[in-house]
């Protein structure tokens, strides 16, 4: 199997607070890794360090065979085009329509003409079941629709790695299940490796090939959903109750 994400001894502090103490992990191509942990345990900081939104204090992050810390701005931008990021709030551009939101990441791809871009936008929206919302503004969309559009914007560049920051937070159980199923569909269709940050155990059950549990900035448990749900560690087990 091809390793697409490699993290070695990652450490990150904010002031005197150590958020990530020592995180090491590897992810293979096409694998869904769920990162479970309490709020404030450093899960989101972990994926922000991965993509270079935050600079780690120590440790090494290698994405698609490239050491993120050693890349210049141009190379980092090129790498980021291969890595999708679905934000907790979806982070849609408020002043743009859904179509413009999806077109925006494509603006540097000079080879594509407007016809090709239109087709790609429509196809990607179809894959998340929202082709009817193409000319709507983000303010006209529900929470679940915003997440879907956010995912479509992530998918339009056909990323090799997708980072999901709490994809089901704030959604009702039915929409949460739909989003979780969509994550699974994306894995099958694009064969992308994914890191899914969540504390929604149902989302973890549907999407995870492998899971890690973070406690106070350290990885305390690793295994499949079944293995961790049967864990004898009381703290780990408390997530599954």
């Amino acid at each position, binding site marked *: 199997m091809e390793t697409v994400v490699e993290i070695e001894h990652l450490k990150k502090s904010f002031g005197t607070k150590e958020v990530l103490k020592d995180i090491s992990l590897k992810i293979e191509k096409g694998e869904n890794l769920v990162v479970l942990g309490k709020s404030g345990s450093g899960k989101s900081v972990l994926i922000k360090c991965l993509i270079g*939104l935050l600079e780690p204090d120590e440790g090494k992050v290698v994405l698609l065979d490239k050491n993120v810390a050693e890349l210049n701005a141009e190379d980092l931008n090129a790498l*980021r*085009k291969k890595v999708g*990021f679905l*934000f907790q709030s979806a982070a*849609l551009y408020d002043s743009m329509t859904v179509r413009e939101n999806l077109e925006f*990441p494509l603006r*540097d791809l000079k080879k594509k003409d407007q016809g090709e871009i239109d087709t790609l936008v429509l196809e990607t929206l179809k894959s998340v079941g929202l082709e009817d919302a193409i000319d709507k503004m983000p303010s006209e969309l529900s929470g679940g629709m915003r997440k879907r559009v956010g995912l479509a914007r992530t998918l339009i560049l056909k990323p090799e790695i997708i980072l999901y920051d709490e994809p089901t937070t704030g959604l009702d159980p039915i929409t949460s299940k739909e989003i979780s199923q969509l994550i699974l569909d994306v894995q099958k269709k694009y064969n992308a490796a994914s890191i899914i940050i969540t504390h929604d155990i149902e989302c973890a059950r549907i999407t995870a090939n492998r899971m890690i549990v973070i406690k106070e900035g350290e990885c305390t448990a690793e295994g499949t959903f079944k293995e961790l749900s049967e864990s004898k560690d009381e703290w780990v087990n408390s997530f599954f109750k």
Partner: protein
Amino acid sequence: MAINLKIENKAVVEKIAKLEEHLHLQALKGFFAEVADMTMFTLRFFKEALKPRYEFKELIKQAYLIGYKSFPLIAITGLIMGLVLTIQSRPTLAEFGAESWLPAMVAVSIVREIGPVITALIFAGKVGSGIGAELASMKVTEQIDAMEVSGINPFKYLVVTRIAAATFMLPVLVIASDAISMYGAYIGVNLKGDVTFHLFFLEVFDKLSFSDVFPALIKTVFFGFAVGLIGCFKGYNADKGTEGVGKSANAAVVYGSLMVFVIDMIAVQVTSLFS
């Protein structure tokens, strides 16, 4: 007992003095840190502005939003400014029998000082706060991060275009405001007099010289740059949370307006050196 109380009081006073000193030091540190950040932000603006790719489409959009959309407000205030200045100046000039100087005096005042400064202050209120609030809300809702992870340089797309648009559009708005103010002054003169349009503007252009118009226009370029820069700096570096949006918008107006006066003071000194 009394001695003990005295000793305790002395200890409390010393503690308060130490705390006060500490707070002053913190405030001073904060000020210098802000100045350093602002300097870095300005240098980054020039670096990013000169480097391709150039965001012309977004620049034109921002010029439209910042310039064209501000025109009605600038026009109304310009008209009132000319009218009020004329009405207020008339009695003083009348005392000396110098009412005929009214068009020229109002024109020089507006073109040299009042037009650029008042327009820049209104611009800071409308555009500076708008930029500050917009970028801060984009920051808070992770839209700026989303741009960055899409491989797009948000500084170039959001900051460079807005500062450039503010720098280009304020001089244009000041020219428009000055022209409308003149028309306001013409109305003001005719409220208690009878001066033809032709004669009024003949008087105005007779007294206005290149040294009145050119330095005034040059300083508006700096006003526009300062308002855009401060709005972007405060918005782009907003703290997390909705409170940060309000703070950024407020700081953009306050510091933007303050910088208008500071630049004006420097501009007056520089102009007087060359004249």
